[in-house]
């Protein structure tokens, strides 16, 4: 086996060579992850805000369920989505199994509870402060929900980041429902798993480095957005 440093050197060589296969894999990873996070936020943000702001029967139960689902094992999600989408499953006719669409669905199911549960906490804290003022002003339910989400916007960026981090690092579910088919459903994490098992450590490590760099730059961008002095005043 090569030494760690020579593997690392080879990995960087691959990264800088901009290998088309590598770029395809990175592109698909980003497309799947960002789409999944987008849909997870479209559902999770309003859902979490509603559970945080409104009082209704079953609210506590819903909050507990959302919190519990944050720890949902990805392979279980993969299995369930696989069963739903398989030819004999209820969603079989959609013919989504082993497509990026199936991977997006699986990641969305994993990320949505994280976004919803963290949003609930953030919104509940702000609502505790705003509730009386909003009641005094006579703010309607929809206005209230949107205002709370807007006023929590900088905290919710971090929530979205948490969802992104979980989705981009996810391997079990996308492997089951995507199948890791070359040029079709092969993403960074599934490639790392495959190449490592094949002993192709350079490519695996190159992808690992890129994954880290992407995660780092996304976090750095969001933190820069949050950190400016004026923004801090809104938090």
């Amino acid at each position: 086996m090569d030494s760690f440093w020579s593997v690392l050197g080879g990995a960087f060589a691959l990264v800088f060579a901009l290998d088309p296969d590598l770029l395809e894999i990175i592109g698909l990873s980003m497309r799947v992850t960002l789409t999944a996070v987008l849909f997870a936020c479209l559902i999770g943000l309003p859902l979490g805000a509603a559970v945080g702001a409104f009082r209704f029967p079953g609210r506590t139960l819903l909050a507990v369920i959302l919190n519990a689902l944050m720890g949902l094992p990805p392979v279980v999600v993969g299995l369930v989505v696989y069963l739903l989408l398989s030819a004999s499953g209820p969603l079989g006719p959609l013919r989504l199994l082993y497509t990026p669409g199936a991977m997006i669905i699986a990641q969305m199911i994993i990320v949505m509870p994280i976004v919803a549960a963290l949003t609930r906490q953030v919104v509940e804290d702000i609502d505790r402060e705003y509730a009386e003022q909003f009641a005094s002003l006579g703010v309607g339910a929809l206005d209230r929900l949107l205002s709370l989400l807007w006023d929590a916007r900088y905290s919710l960026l971090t929530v979205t980041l948490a969802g992104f981090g979980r989705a981009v690092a996810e391997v079990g579910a996308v492997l089951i429902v995507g199948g890791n088919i070359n040029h079709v459903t092969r993403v960074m994490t599934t490639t790392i798993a495959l190449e490592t098992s094949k002993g192709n450590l350079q490519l695996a490590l190159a992808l690992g480095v890129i994954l880290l760099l992407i995660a780092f730059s996304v976090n750095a961008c969001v933190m820069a957005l949050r950190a400016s002095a004026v923004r801090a005043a809104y938090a």
Partner: protein
Amino acid sequence: MRDAIFDMPAAPSGYRPIARDEMLLEASNLVFEAGGQRLLCGIDVSIRKGARTLVMGPNGAGKSLLLRLLHGLLKPAQGDVLWQGSPLTKQAMRAQAMVFQRPVLLRRSVLANLKFALSVRGLRGAERAEKIDMALTAAGLSHLAKQPARVLSGGEQQRLAVVRALACEPDLLFLDEPTANLDPASTAAIETLVLEANARGVTIVLVTHDSGQAKRLGQDVIFLQDGCVAEAGPASQVLGAPRSEPARAWQDGRLYLGANTRSINDRSRRTF
């Protein structure tokens, strides 16, 4: 029950009786309970239209609670709140506004805070812009309009909260210790805003601990002790010559611990 606690009747005999149609807000037999404790014990309150009514009393007497019940933020366990003779509805709540001890400002600019409140009232476009402009001028905050509201000083924040409430053109403005955390100049600015609004016909109900402020603003006073009205009437009487022991103790700066007990800071150590 009340007679056992307080040595004077709650309703002073010299208080001018008021015709019912002069009353903007009335509450009868208001009871509020929380955690098995009775926090308000059947309170009767009348707020005269156009008057400045102070709600006073020591910590824990139920002043803020009373304000929230009168404004409809909390529902009483028993009793009714009547707005111009009819039960308090959402519509009636819109004719009222409230300023809290700690101003609750949105995480937005000064301008956006005013815009939000006026939008809730259905104002748009030029009409809203004009009202925002007037509010900013009244509060002396025009130069800070674009600033995030939460970086303002305490005084500026409270001025914003007051003009935001007044921009909604309420008939009645509740203020819950609006100047408790403010310096004298900021306090004076808030009092000026309150007096100007009152001069325009806005009825004022204000909770305060500040005896100076009470003298400057008070017309009617409701003095609470342990969730009951100890004394109510014109400020000159309740503050000038209090008849009830709790109000007397407050005026002397003594801690009232109940009928026939000594205060822990009772300098004269007299028995009552």
